[in-house]
């Protein structure tokens, strides 16, 4: 046989991948530095298709990087800086050991620093790319800004994170682009739409952190390093697009309003300005004064490949959004001291409301509690002693629910001491066949402008009045009727859901002949389908079974939730009944 014998693992996938250790050796970096570099440059491992081939016949678990990626890292200037820094640390340690304090001073002055600008530019060649990735950056910055200023990370980092977070919030307020907000047990989720990108971030509740021991803060710090750089540039660009001054400055009026207060009470001279900014109560200064021309509406042209209907739908959505932006316009809020001030101030300002708080609570309050014009007073305690007549005293959930519902909800359910209605996640979009909690249905009805529930409630009230006059028997009857109604409703709901689900659902036997024909037809169809399924290929059958299994599971879960709800409602009703009897 002629020709050289081909050796194994010298071409193909075995040469396209390198293990982590080899990559590290190639870059001659320590593991920590390699990790840092990967984080900064956004290099992630790859899973080869044939692991054994890549692993040169071994089946040991290993992480693999693309060789191209590692080659790409070779030319990174930051790598040189890492090495410089290593040398710097060594020298510094030596100087400390020799107690050469002047040398230490000098070295500290010349500490090698590196910038990540080029990496940001390289990773995100366009601004939209950067904006798309800003979710995690925001969540991380908001987390770091809540850290105590001791241990775990540098104070400068925390301050920078706080600054960037405040800048971002101010921008969102100015753009009025917040869309959704959700109070979860983990923290507060916000969702904004910036330049067509949906950005979601989570802010933890204001508590001191119980720092876990099994978390590598170095990794987190490296990420934060990257994220602060990214967020800074993004903020700058965003401020520029709105003609706002960067770094942000309060506009003349706002500054005037705040000047009058005695600033020393709240913060140091050096920090008072940033504190005022973070109060979120005043608008920002612009490079070009804002000209208010709201009449000038842009003409709409259907984009290419878009028909008239979709354009109309788009217009409708835009109109809705504009409406949402002015949700709280004309309302004046006052925050009691126990409510989360920053979140609420951010929210209210995002939708055009005015907000203030007690002077002693935080810097930046614009009016007092005694202001006659206040329409809503947000309180999170069962009762309040001194109440003004011309304002609503409501619980904070109202604000959040209003934002998600895009309308001003009736305040009755949110008064002090009232059991709150459930707070629903605005991120859930129910598709057909999913379980929809009744509160959501109610909300949808409200959004459509219907008010079906209130009427029934009134009727019930009327009934109750009558019942007071009449005997107890009637009481029971009406209750039964109510129950029957409810059951009918439930049955309707279930039917609706069932229709959307599957074709193979068995239809309950009917009595009319016409239905019978329908039924036979359906049965025939079902039989046909069953027979056709028999003829499926093995592969397709497997896939089909899998899909159907998933569908069935979803249905099962939805049914379970519905059943749970029903049980809960029944229990509630029974309780009510008992209470009523006791009263009687």
């Amino acid at each position: 046989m002629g020709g050289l014998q081909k050796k194994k693992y010298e071409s193909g996938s075995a040469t396209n991948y390198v293990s982590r250790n080899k990559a590290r050796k190639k870059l001659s970096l320590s593991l920590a530095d390699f990790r840092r570099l990967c984080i900064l440059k956004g290099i992630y491992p790859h899973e080869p298709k044939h692991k054994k081939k890549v692993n040169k016949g071994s089946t040991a678990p290993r992480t693999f990087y693309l060789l191209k990626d590692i080659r790409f890292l070779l030319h990174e200037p930051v790598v040189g800086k890492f090495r410089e820094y290593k040398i710097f640390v060594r020298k510094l340690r030596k100087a400390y050991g020799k107690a050469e304090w002047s040398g230490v001073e000098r070295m500290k002055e010349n500490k090698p620093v590196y910038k990540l600008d080029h990496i940001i530019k390289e990773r995100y060649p366009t601004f939209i790319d950067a904006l798309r990735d800003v979710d995690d950056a925001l969540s991380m910055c908001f987390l770091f800004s809540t850290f105590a200023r001791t241990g775990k990370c540098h104070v400068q980092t925390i301050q920078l994170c706080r600054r960037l977070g405040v800048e971002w919030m101010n921008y969102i307020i100015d753009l009025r682009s917040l869309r959704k907000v959700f109070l979860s047990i983990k923290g507060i989720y916000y969702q904004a739409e910036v330049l067509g990108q949906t950005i979601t971030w989570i802010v933890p509740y204001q508590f001191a952190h119980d720092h876990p021991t099994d978390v590598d803060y170095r990794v987190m710090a490296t990420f934060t390093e990257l994220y602060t750089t990214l967020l800074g540039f993004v903020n700058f660009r965003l401020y520029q697009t709105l003609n706002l001054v960067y770094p942000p400055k309060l506009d003349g009026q706002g500054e005037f309003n705040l000047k009058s207060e005695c600033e020393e009470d709240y913060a140091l001279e050096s920090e008072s300005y940033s504190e005022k900014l973070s109060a979120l109560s005043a608008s920002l200064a612009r490079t070009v004064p804002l000209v208010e021309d709201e009449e000038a509406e842009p003409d709409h042209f259907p984009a290419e490949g878009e028909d008239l209907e979709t354009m109309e739908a788009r217009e409708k959505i835009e109109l809705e959004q504009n409406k949402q932006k002015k949700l709280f316009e004309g309302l004046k809020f006052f925050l009691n001291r126990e409510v989360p001030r920053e979140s609420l101030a951010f929210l209210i300002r995002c939708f055009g409301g005015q907000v203030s708080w007690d002077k002693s609570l935080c810097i930046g309050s614009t009016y007092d509690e005694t202001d006659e014009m206040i329409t809503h007073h947000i309180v999170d305690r069962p009762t309040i002693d001194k109440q003004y007549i011309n304002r609503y005293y409501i619980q904070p959930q109202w604000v959040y629910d209003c934002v998600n519902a895009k309308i001003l909800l009736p305040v009755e359910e949110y008064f002090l001491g009232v059991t709150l209605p459930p707070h629903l996640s605005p991120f859930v979009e129910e598709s057909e066949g999913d379980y929809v909690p009744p509160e959501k249905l109610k909300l949808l009805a409200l959004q459509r402008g219907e008010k079906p529930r209130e009427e029934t409630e009134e009727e019930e009230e009327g009934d109750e009045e009558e019942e007071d006059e009449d005997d107890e028997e009637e009481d029971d009857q009406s209750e039964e009727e109510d129950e029957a109604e409810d059951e009918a409703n439930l049955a309707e709901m279930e039917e609706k859901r069932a229709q959307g689900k599957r074709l193979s659902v068995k239809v309950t036997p009917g009595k009319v002949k016409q239905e019978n024909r329908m039924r036979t037809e359906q049965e025939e169809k079902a039989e046909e389908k069953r027979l056709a399924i028999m003829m499926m290929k093995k592969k397709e059958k497997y896939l089909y079974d899998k899909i159907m299994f998933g569908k069935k599971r979803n249905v099962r879960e939805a049914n379970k939730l519905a059943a749970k709800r029903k049980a809960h409602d029944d229990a509630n009703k029974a309780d009510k009944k008992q209470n009523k009897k006791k009263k009687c």
Partner: protein
Amino acid sequence: MEYAVLDKLSNYTISSILSALYVLKKKFHIGGIFADTDILGSYWPIISAKRYIGRALLASTLSSDLAICKSLLIFITFSVRSQDIRNTVGNIPMEWYKDYPHIGYDLEGKKIFKPIRNKDELDEFLDKMENPDYWRTVQDKMTGADIRLSDEQVDLVHRLQQGKFGDVNFNEYEPAIDFFSNEVMIHPVTNRPQDKRSFIPSLIEKEKVGKLVHAIKMGWIKPHRPKETTPQYYDLWAKEDPNSILGRHKMHIPAPKMKLPGHEESYNPPPEYLMSEEERLAWEQQDPEYRKLSFLPQKLACLRAVPAYSRFIHERFERCLDLYLCPRQRKMRVNVNPEDLIPKLPKPKDLQPFPTTQSLVYRGHSSLVRSISISPSGQWLVSGSDDCTVRFWEVSTARCLKTVEVGGAVKGVAWNPNLSICLVAVSYDDTVVLLNPGLGDRLVCTATDQLISSYEEPEEVKDQPVQWAVAEGEGHEQGHRLILKHPKAVRQVTWHGKGDYLACVIPDNGSSLQVVIHQVSKRRTQNPFRKNKGLVQCVSFHPIRPYFFVATQRYVRVYNLIKQELTKKLMANCKWISSMAIHPGGDNVICGSYDCRLAWFDLDLSTKPYKVLRQHKKALRSVAYHRHYPLFVSGSDDGNVIVCHGMVYNDLLQNPLIVPVKVLKGHTITHDLGVLDVTFHPTQPWVFSSGADGTVRLFT
């Protein structure tokens, strides 16, 4: 050491002492004075004292002042005595003398003996108890004698233990005399002239500084790092360069965004999203990795009551880990409508006729009905059961016309396909009986009887594996005509299309006699195979051509009977074939198997199945083709009979069309057995099936 010290004494001191001692010795005869300088020089203070003593002595001797001399001598004696050095071995480890009775040598060179008896523990103890001075008694290693320390010595020991000076009178805090004070003396401490280098600038330093200056001038080093002039943040994307979008960016897989929270994560979720007690327990017992929710849903009365989420940092950290440690892969999500996966088949309605409903049930057997067969006219049905009977039914009325008892459980029945012969082959145990049921046309029946009786013995009788016998007596009255005794149990009987040949299967893995072909007219039996090629399951004649199909466990072999050779071997791709049927056209074969499959072979196409159907849930027992209609049927242990439309086109390019058209149910499952045999009506699209429940059913 001692001698070196002595050297330091001036000679005259020693000689003066010696001379003084000599004088003293002469004058006063003082004994016990050892005139050895060695004794004197044991340590410095004494030596120095001795120096003075020596001088004093000399002076006193010279002046003959005896009083002073005497007192001095007493002092010397005391000092020498207090030394008490008699052992002359020097400073050596005393254990060298361990094994000797003596411990050294005195000044005269005599042995110093050890104390006679060493104290034992008891003595030691008694001594400790009784002797008040025990605590200040030490043993002299040099002599082995006990020495009681004096008060001064004890005091000295105490002082040394406390880290004080041994001398009581020594003052450690004497005022220090500052030699090099700020007071300028008239005279210098040293009178050395200053070095030149102390007032000339250093050349090396100059060189170093020069180098630095040069480096700074050349710009090699900078004394101070230049302050950053660019702002921290600026418009990074001021000019977006389309060239900066590299191939990397196209290959880059952006990290998926975090999952958005659902209703259950709310601080005040709807009540149905809260976990019940059992669910909560199950959640707690689950491994955190496999939990569907990473947290417990909670309902809190108001926003004020919401606690800090303890795993917040954890979750962010995990997200970080996911971002830089997780391999990313584009996963093709199968976004397919399940309805599209179902193959589009012609509607069964358009493929009629086929049996749809159960119309008649033939009851009468008391045990499972293994086999059924229909007369070629389609008027009669024969069924053989495990209750050792063969029953003849009228198809249209389900009436049992005749019951014939045989000597064992009937394994197979087969009606002769020839219209002019009325014969039924029945197999039980090792016997095959040819019955004339006497049904239908009388002429045919009598003609058949005549045919059998007109047999003439050939001249030369061959040795046959099967014994042929003519039934007589009671058997004959019941209809038995011929009885064939086989060496082993017969499982299946099947007729050739012409009705003269009869094939029997005698499943036996050990012998080559598994299939026999009988010729009824000549009462002859052949064993077509010389070799055993596996356990034979069933056999069948080709409906038109002289082919013979033999199904073993996994293969179907097709033999040419004329050429007497193997023409084809069909691979069934299943574990165990149970039954086989041949299309009346002769080019297609179906095989049912015990592993729930039905394989359709197209003999022109390949030796592998053209199609494998997995319709039944349990093992297939029987399959059959219709003689005229494009139908085939399969019966299975799950009690179902599935009728399929199997259209075979004359056009060789077109593959057969197979569509299942009906699932017929009716048989009840008894002893895990459902349908045991199926067969079609010869002219109508009707199916007969026999089951383990002892019934035969007709579907029309």
